[in-house]
């Protein structure tokens, strides 16, 4: 008895503490606020975005809440990062609506880490409207849909108009072949002392850009069904040889060969790089997050060789698999309003463009249509008065992108295969005697082992 009386207060405290913890966790997970509204945590911008971006978001948030008074939208700073995604998902700290790139969507949905939105997409009538190539990125092997493709891009050749001018090149006549890119790069390096051409090499982006540039030469990393590695092909070989020649024969790639998406953008914005390949929608991030002087920006299509295709990519608006019905319903309303309506509804498109333009945010950055080309081009006419990006500086891309054939990223173990290719790109750029054939043969073997799992 004594023992029992001693234990019982402890038990009571333990039970009370457990109850309090569970109750507080439960309160967190239902997403219901005290005034009966559904609290919806939505992704906004990556860390580092300027205040104007948040001001524009606040306007849009208010517009949505006026339309849906039962939903309380809470903007959450968000940046897609594979490394922290699973931990955030497990810890329940992901927003209720966020975006992921096409590259990772298949892996995530096959892992059961994304919420099924098939019924919602069908109900909203979007299922038949999406570009089928793009919809494939969010479709599981049993035909279910796990997200709303909201934006697509093609890889383009970014260039610095000011460096072109300093090197005696015409910024309105960017290169159209890889040989021209090489010649222009050499001229920029010689005349300005800056890197004429650069490429990403780190954190899987080296593999990503190698894939893109090889695709433009007709070389692809995997068979169409993704079961066979074909890394050791002529397109990849020619791309590596191109890097080698620019680096070791022309000395036109500067001094830094450890660059990823962020650092190459930073160097470009600082005026240290003449040309590099990256997404066609990069302008927004370059100006918003890297303080690029808009007047020096130029964008054209990646040069295409026989059999070449342009690598595409994009973002998908998704929800975690664990949302309750009320929050899921609110999340779908937000996705439809914030991401989708502006693609096909004139009023929504104008309201979105106006809010962004009023806050000094980029409107009119070139993208690829996630619906059909005609709808996309029509939507551009709706928002024309608000377009504030220098589209004339992007004419090379805008006028020729629809002449190119898009291709998706490799289907199997995409990020892991990109990671395998990073050291190869680095080897070619840091070792004059790197044996390209031997490196590719080894990478091919390793990639096949990864695919076979």
């Amino acid at each position, binding site marked *: 008895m*004594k*023992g029992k009386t*001693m234990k019982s207060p402890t038990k009571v405290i333990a039970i009370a503490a457990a109850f309090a913890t569970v109750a507080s966790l439960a309160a967190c997970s239902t997403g219901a606020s005290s005034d009966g509204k559904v609290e919806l945590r939505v992704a906004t911008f990556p860390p580092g975005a300027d205040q104007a971006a948040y001001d524009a978001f606040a306007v849009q948030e208010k517009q949505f809440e006026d339309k849906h008074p039962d939903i309380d939208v809470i903007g959450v700073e968000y940046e897609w990062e*594979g*490394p*922290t*995604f*699973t*931990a955030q*998902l*497990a810890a329940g700290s992901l927003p209720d609506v966020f975006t992921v790139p096409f590259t*990772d969507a298949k*892996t*995530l949905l096959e*892992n*059961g*880490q994304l919420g099924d939105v098939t019924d919602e997409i069908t109900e909203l009538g979007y299922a038949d409207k999406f570009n089928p190539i793009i919809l494939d990125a969010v479709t599981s092997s049993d035909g279910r849909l796990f997200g709303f493709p909201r934006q697509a891009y093609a890889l383009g050749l970014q260039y610095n108009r000011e460096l072109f001018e300093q090197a005696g090149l015409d910024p309105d006549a960017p290169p159209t072949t890889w040989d021209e890119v090489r010649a222009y790069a050499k001229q920029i390096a010689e005349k300005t002392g800056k890197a004429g051409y650069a490429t990403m*090499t*780190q*954190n*899987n982006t080296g593999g990503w850009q190698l894939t893109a540039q090889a695709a433009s030469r007709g070389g692809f990393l995997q068979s169409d069904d993704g079961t066979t590695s074909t890394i050791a092909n002529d397109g990849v070989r020619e791309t590596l040889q191109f890097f080698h020649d620019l680096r070791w024969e022309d000395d036109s790639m*500067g*001094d*830094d*060969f*450890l660059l*990823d998406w962020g650092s190459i953008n930073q160097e470009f914005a600082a005026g240290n790089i003449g040309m590099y390949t990256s997404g066609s929608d990069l302008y927004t991030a370059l100006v918003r997050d890297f303080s690029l002087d808009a007047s020096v920006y130029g964008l054209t299509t990646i040069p295409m060789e026989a059999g070449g295709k342009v690598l595409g990519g994009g973002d998908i608006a998704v929800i975690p698999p664990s949302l309750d019905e009320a929050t899921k319903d609110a999340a779908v309303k937000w996705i439809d309003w914030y991401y989708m309506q502006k693609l096909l509804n004139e009023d929504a498109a104008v309201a979105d463009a106006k809010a962004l333009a009023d806050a000094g945010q980029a409107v009119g950055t070139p993208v690829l249509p996630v619906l059909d080309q005609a709808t996309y081009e029509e939507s551009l006419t709706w928002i024309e008065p608000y377009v504030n990006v220098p589209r004339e500086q992007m004419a090379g891309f805008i006028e020729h992108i629809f002449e190119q054939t898009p291709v998706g990223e490799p289907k199997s173990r995409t*990020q*892991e295969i990109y*990671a395998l290719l*990073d*050291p*190869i790109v*680095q*080897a070619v*750029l*840091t*070792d004059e005697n*790197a044996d390209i054939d031997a490196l590719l043969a080894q990478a091919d073997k*390793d990639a096949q082992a990864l695919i076979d799992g």
Partner: protein
Amino acid sequence: MTVLDERRAAPPQRPHPRPDTARRRDRSIRAWVRRGGLTTLLFALPMILVFSVYSWWPILQSLWMSFQKTNLITSQFVGLDNFVNVLSDPLLGRAVLNTAYFALLALVFGFPLPIFMAVLMSEVKRMKGLYSALAYLPVIVPPVVAVLLWRFFYSASPTGVFNTIIGWFGIPPQPWIQDATQAMPALVLEATWAAAGGSIIIYLAALLAVPPELYDAAEVDGAGIWRKVWHVTLPQLRGVIFIMLILQIIATAQVFLEPYLFTGGGPNNATVTVLLLIYRYAFENSLGGKYGEATALSVMLALFLAAASFLYFKATQKWSTD
């Protein structure tokens, strides 16, 4: 309360004592309470709880995770598969060699430097505080800032800071971290710069404990400065040096910050270390698919370091206490 009640109820002398072991245990518990054991426990309890929740429990969890295939949402017991996968990874050998290379360079060039500096600084008569502060300055620079600063110094351009300096001596520009052979020594140089200040302060403190009479006696015997250092200072610092050495070995075996921030393991995997490989397993490629491999390699590294530390202490026990 229970214990107090029992103590009150217990007669001063029992006619029929309980069996020996039970009595001994009872007495030892009472003695422990009388000595203030409960109060000690009460004071220690918050720390025990904090360590349990934030340190020991995660360690046990990660040990368990090394036998699982998990994406943190669903888990499956896979036995020793993770260990087999790690051991068959072609990059593991490279990472181990790179880590050993880093540790060796840090040992040869980085370890004696603070001892030398501390001895030198202890001989300075004026403005000792200023020299200590200057030596310690790099330690208070946030490590990320220090690496970014050094990345700038290491610019491979002929106009880079270090290349300009070596240019004054007629040495051509070097690629530094942009070259597979130079990258690791460059990382060690920065790591030594960043860590030396802390070690110098510890050695300076230890030098204060060396009795001045020993130097006087050595001087009477006709010893010069180097003989005094060799025969008095170093033997007197022996204990501290042994501890600093094992701490450095453990720290260098876990080097992560420099390769992660400077080179990301490049160029061409020349600076991939064991910890960077663990990070890559856990976070880089897999969207969460390789936590098992990451914890398996962590467990192997921890076991290796535990064994190495044990052997080290066994081997040096005699020397450091003589």
